[in-house]
């Protein structure tokens, strides 16, 4: 609660600033307080949500001198020899990761939910959840160790699969799977906890009624629990898909750690970064960013409408 007083002051400050701007003839004292409370958020949303998106649009359709470029930037980046391989890499990674996420997260949530021993269920969820503390560069570094047969805790396993060196492990063909494993390891636990919570919200009467009617565990899972999880699975799909298209830190670090066995333009976001900071072509970078943004939004929109997300509002 220590945040309350400053929040008051800020809100009051915003209130004073805003009042003259809205001479809409309301009686004093009836000023909608909602505007005051959302003012700072609206400001940030404009500065770091709306404006950058619009700015990206402008940049993508102009050239370095600020003149209108039409589709020029898009044909340039799409025609880049690095573009389609990057699309393929990210797509493969997304397919593997999303399938793994849906199958294993939902499966594990159902299993953990079925554990009757209370401490065991809690402990399982905790262990699954723990890697979530390691994200970004830290989790990639950890997996560099795990994938390096000289130091790996599972070097026996790696050798058994015929991988005798780090370079053999990170061959380009393996990368989509490797990135999917890293992302799954880091992120799955949080989703398992969310699915578990959603399963807890299913009324016990309904499950008991199904049992009385003779449904077995598998039938209950398939016919009752899964359909009721639909919304949450869609939610997980949207968030993961949107995030996955932005693949950056994993290939970036792997490229650095492998003496460029993994190229530094492996993913689309890396390519955008190369355009912006190696070629000083911000218009090209904006074009790639915009493509990524539109694809993420389109795919999310499909998930949202098909999955019945946000039905209430």
């Amino acid at each position, binding site marked *: 609660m220590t945040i309350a007083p400053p929040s008051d002051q800020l809100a009051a400050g915003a209130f004073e600033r805003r009042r003259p701007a809205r001479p809409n003839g309301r009686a004093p004292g009836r000023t*909608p307080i909602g505007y*005051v409370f959302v003012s700072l*958020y609206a400001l940030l949303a404009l500065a770091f949500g*709306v404006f950058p998106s619009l700015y990206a649009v402008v940049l993508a359709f102009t050239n370095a001198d600020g003149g209108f470029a039409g589709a020029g930037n898009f044909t340039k980046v799409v025609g880049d020899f690095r573009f389609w391989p990057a699309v393929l890499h990210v797509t493969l990674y997304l397919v593997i990761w999303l399938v793994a996420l849906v199958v294993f997260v939902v499966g*594990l949530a159902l299993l953990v939910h079925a554990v009757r021993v209370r401490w065991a269920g809690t402990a399982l969820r905790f262990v699954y959840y723990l890697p979530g503390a390691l994200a970004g560069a830290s989790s990639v*570094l950890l997996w560099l160790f*795990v994938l390096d047969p000289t130091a790996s805790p*599972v070097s026996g396993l790696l050798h058994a699969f015929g991988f005798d060196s780090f370079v053999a492990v990170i061959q380009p063909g393996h990368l989509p799977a490797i990135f999917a494993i890293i992302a799954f390891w880091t992120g799955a636990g949080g989703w398992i906890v969310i699915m578990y*919570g959603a399963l807890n919200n299913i009324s016990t009467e309904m499950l008991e009624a199904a049992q009385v009617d003779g449904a077995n565990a598998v039938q209950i899972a398939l016919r009752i629990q899964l359909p009721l999880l639909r919304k949450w699975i869609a939610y997980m799909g949207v968030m993961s898909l949107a995030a996955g298209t932005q693949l950056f830190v994993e290939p970036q670090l792997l490229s*650095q750690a492998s003496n460029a066995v993994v190229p530094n333009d492996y993913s689309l976001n890396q390519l955008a970064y190369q355009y912006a900071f190696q070629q000083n072509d911000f218009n090209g970078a904006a074009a790639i960013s915009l493509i990524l943004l539109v694809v993420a939004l389109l795919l999310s929109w499909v998930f949202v409408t098909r999955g019945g997300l946000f039905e209430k509002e």
Partner: protein
Amino acid sequence: MNLRGWSGRSLAGVVMILFVFFFAVPIVWLLLSVTKSAKALTVANPFSVGSWHDFVANWNQLFGFQDGAVTTWIGNSAVYAGGALVLTLLVSIPAGYALALTEFKLRRALLVLTLVVMLIPSTALVLPIFLELNSAGLIGSPLSVILPMSFFPFGVYLTYIYFSTSIPRDLLAAARIDGCTEVQVFTRIALPLGAPIVALVAFFSFVQNWNNFFLPFVMLPSSDGYPIQVGLTSLLASTPAFNPSSAGSDSVQLPTLALATVVSVLPVLIVFLFSQRFLVSGMTAGGTKE
């Protein structure tokens, strides 16, 4: 759900245990490896415990790296994640409350905007935000990461869901009749009842910002301004095991790199361990929407 039958139950158990190993083995190994010398790391049993002596040596090497750069990076991370945390709470909690429990004309528009921006991955906006802040002359300043991090639509959405499902409007109306001003209604009634969601938003904001890589990587060109997550790349670049060309005076051994990984996640790990209980209930706050 009850798993009938002995074989079904043991199969389920095996699957769950396999995943325990999958999730836990890397972490356990990492924690053990910081106690080993570089040689022991590759030769000794992966799950053996090293020695205090080697741990101290790794520690000294890590914090001696580039004259104490690691300390600077951790300090930077604390400033960025802490600053963004405070701002996020000041901004998101009142906004979520207003969206849930007050009426104003642009309410619906702002809610839709929140949902849409929530679906935009934060990394997609990094380059446009870079260009924006570049023209504002903020690149390299702490504000260039703190301000974008403070915009946290997911936190607003969580707060919105929580307040719209768990606080009856009658309660607020009663407080108004008793003479509370709108601000008092928020600080005296809603905020105390909203303590769990404040903690949850704080947790998500902190974890996300501490672990953020791409934003600071782009916004902060100088090593002095790196947070630890970006600093890790400098350490990685100086590790001969992954980067043979880097063998030199300031090179980093594998156990030291492992220690750096542990140190970089320690604050988040501690927050995780302490907040585990309320998190499990809190993370599903959205689930009570039905």
